[in-house]
């Protein structure tokens, strides 16, 4: 079995986002970057498959030089290969990203392609589905359980009010959701082994950009919270304020 995991480096969830001077990008200078948490789930699932089927796990990522640190995180968890598609800055148009990834994925003949269901920075949740289209292989999105027997893939997805069980044949694209697994911590052994893995670099000419960011703004500041009181006595006043000030009930 040949497995690929497409990952993205994103700002740390605790990073304080500062908007850049052009008002179209964020200021990256003081940001700590991490491996997208949903992609961690994908890496973990790939490693489980690797352990069951003795396969390679290739990490593929597109982005500037800084992303190799997150690729190393994935290698340290136990992935065996890595391909870095080098570009100056991460595209905002998911179509560009998916097209570039598809080109590399085609060369690798992968049976299983795993990705996080979305990246936590721009939250597009597009790459998996677009790849499915471009590569013409089935995608099962937002999975919470996975079982592969022979070439039959059975995956579960959480849907409104229940669980959907989906079946497909290899090759397959899977996007991962919380609950699928608990990503492992990279051990010292993994970190040292990752040191010896060469990250393969690829240069690809990107397709045209069809999405443009016009402006980025901070969310409006939340008005300060107010503590009305404590216990039952406070309820009448709370109701009054909800009615008259906040106007959320009538």
């Amino acid at each position, binding site marked *: 079995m040949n497995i690929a995991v497409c990952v993205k480096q994103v700002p740390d969830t605790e990073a304080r986002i500062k908007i850049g001077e052009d008002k179209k990008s964020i200021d990256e200078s003081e940001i700590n970057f991490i491996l997208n948490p949903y992609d961690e789930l994908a890496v973990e699932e790939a490693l489980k498959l690797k352990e069951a089927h003795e396969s390679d796990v290739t990490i593929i990522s597109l982005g500037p030089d800084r992303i190799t640190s997150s690729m190393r995180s994935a290698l340290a968890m136990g992935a065996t290969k890595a391909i870095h598609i080098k570009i100056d800055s991460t595209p905002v148009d998911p179509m560009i990203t998916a097209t570039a990834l598809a080109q590399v994925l085609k060369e690798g003949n992968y049976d299983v392609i795993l990705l996080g269901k979305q990246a936590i920075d721009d939250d597009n949740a597009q790459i998996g589905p677009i790849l499915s289209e471009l590569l013409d292989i089935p995608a099962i999105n937002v999975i919470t359980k996975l079982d592969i027997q022979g070439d039959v893939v059975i995956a579960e997805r959480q849907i409104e009010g229940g669980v959907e069980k989906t079946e497909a044949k290899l090759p397959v694209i899977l996007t991962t959701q919380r609950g699928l697994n608990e990503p492992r*911590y*990279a*051990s*010292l052994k993994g*970190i040292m082994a*990752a*040191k010896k893995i060469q990250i393969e670099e690829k240069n690809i000419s990107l397709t045209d950009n069809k999405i443009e960011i016009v402006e980025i703004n901070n969310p409006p500041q939340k008005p300060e919270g107010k503590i009305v009181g404590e216990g039952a006595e406070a309820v009448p006043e709370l109701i009054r304020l909800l009615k008259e000030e906040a106007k959320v009930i009538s």
Partner: protein
Amino acid sequence: MKKSETLPSFSKSLFSGYLVDEMVFPYPEQDKEEKENLDLILETFRKFAEDNIDSSKFDEICEVPTTVIDDLKELGFFGLVIPEEYGGFGITSTSYVRVLEEVGKVDGSIALLIGAHQSIGLKGLLLFGTKEQKEKYLPKLATGEMIAAYCLTEPSAGSDAGGIKTRVVRDKKKGVYILNGTKMWITNGGIADFFTVFAKEEIEMPDGEKKDKITALMVTRDMGVASSKQEKKLGIRASSTTEVIFDNVEVPFENIIGERGKGFKVAMEVLNSGRVGLAGGSVGGSKTMLKQAITHVKERQQFNRPLIEFEAIKDKISQIAINIYAAESMTYLTTALIDSGKVDYSLESAMSKTYATDRLWENANEVLQMAGGIGYSQEYPYEQWVRDSRINSIFEGTNEILRLFVALSGIQERGEYLKKIGKALKDPIKGFGVLSDYAVSYVKDRLTKERIQDVHSSLTESKALFENWAKNLHITTERVLMKYGKSIIQKQIIQTRLADAMIYLY
């Protein structure tokens, strides 16, 4: 081992009026690849800690749960400093201490668990062991299958480590040492399987006289080592601290570390290299406290304003930040000296420990103070920081003893040189003039003409101050040497002040 005495030492040189600036300037930068690896290790620990380490609970139950220890073993945190050829990860001193800092940010007891194992417990073997000894034990120590402890202190011998009573007698027929005695305050004592033990042995000197000397041995739990119950302590309650008892324990001859009767040197060298780890942990603890304090003073309102807006509070916060900056700078300058090999870092290590642990205590106290009433409550982390911080100025050499050590080592260097000059010492008053003139011009030359050239312009004034005080340290050292001669050994107040001067200069 004689060799190490002739290695260059930044601080000993400064006492003598030499500023070996290339040893410390510019500030060392970590190798890029090494830094990348370190970042991954830190990330692993942070994630692990967030999910698994509940410091206040461990404090309450007075132990680190076995599952947590097992996970840390699995992740590799017991083999950080052990070379790869022996199953460890061979990270540098800088990376190792940085890891201890990260652990110290979260939990002092766990920093000690990992630290006592690697900084001191197995360090004797690492520094002085033979290849066979290393092959036998290091792989098991690297995986944590064996946890290590360092057994020097006894009920009647703490600062005066030379006064230990634990004894070994050689049984030539059996090929073993018979070991008897009780060690006290042993970190990891209750959970360790590997003990580096220091004991007195009667050694026949070349002149035929018999003398008690210290011999260092590796003892394993299965040889019959017993531990007392967990000590009830002020802080670091989750850290295992016990007595370790040896009752006719038979230790094979081949388990000696170094040579017979040369164990005191082993004990001291281990502590010299281990101490800087405590500095790292203290920097980590201080950083977390500062973060918590800042959050608190921004939120807490009094007199209709958040506390952070009051000048007295700002002053406290900035002082803590300054303390951390200085302690951190000393610590990683020292680890870089250690990593560079071939230098004598004993004073720098002792000074980093002394300074960082004194500041840790001061920071903990101030942070609790800023928290006010809740600082005193067990519902909040502040009181545990105070309790956990307190130990650091006591063990691995009390800070008082370390100051005496720094001063006496610095003076000794100069004293030996002055002895060579000889005559001048016999006529202190006349001699002083000659020597101090010589000293002043010499130091001036060394300091201002060719030394520290490319400092940032904002530091020109600090540089001048530094040079001036460095000169004064040197002159004072010579002056007290000439005034007190040998009896300087009794002048602890002067020694302490000299050491403080050196610490601030460093």
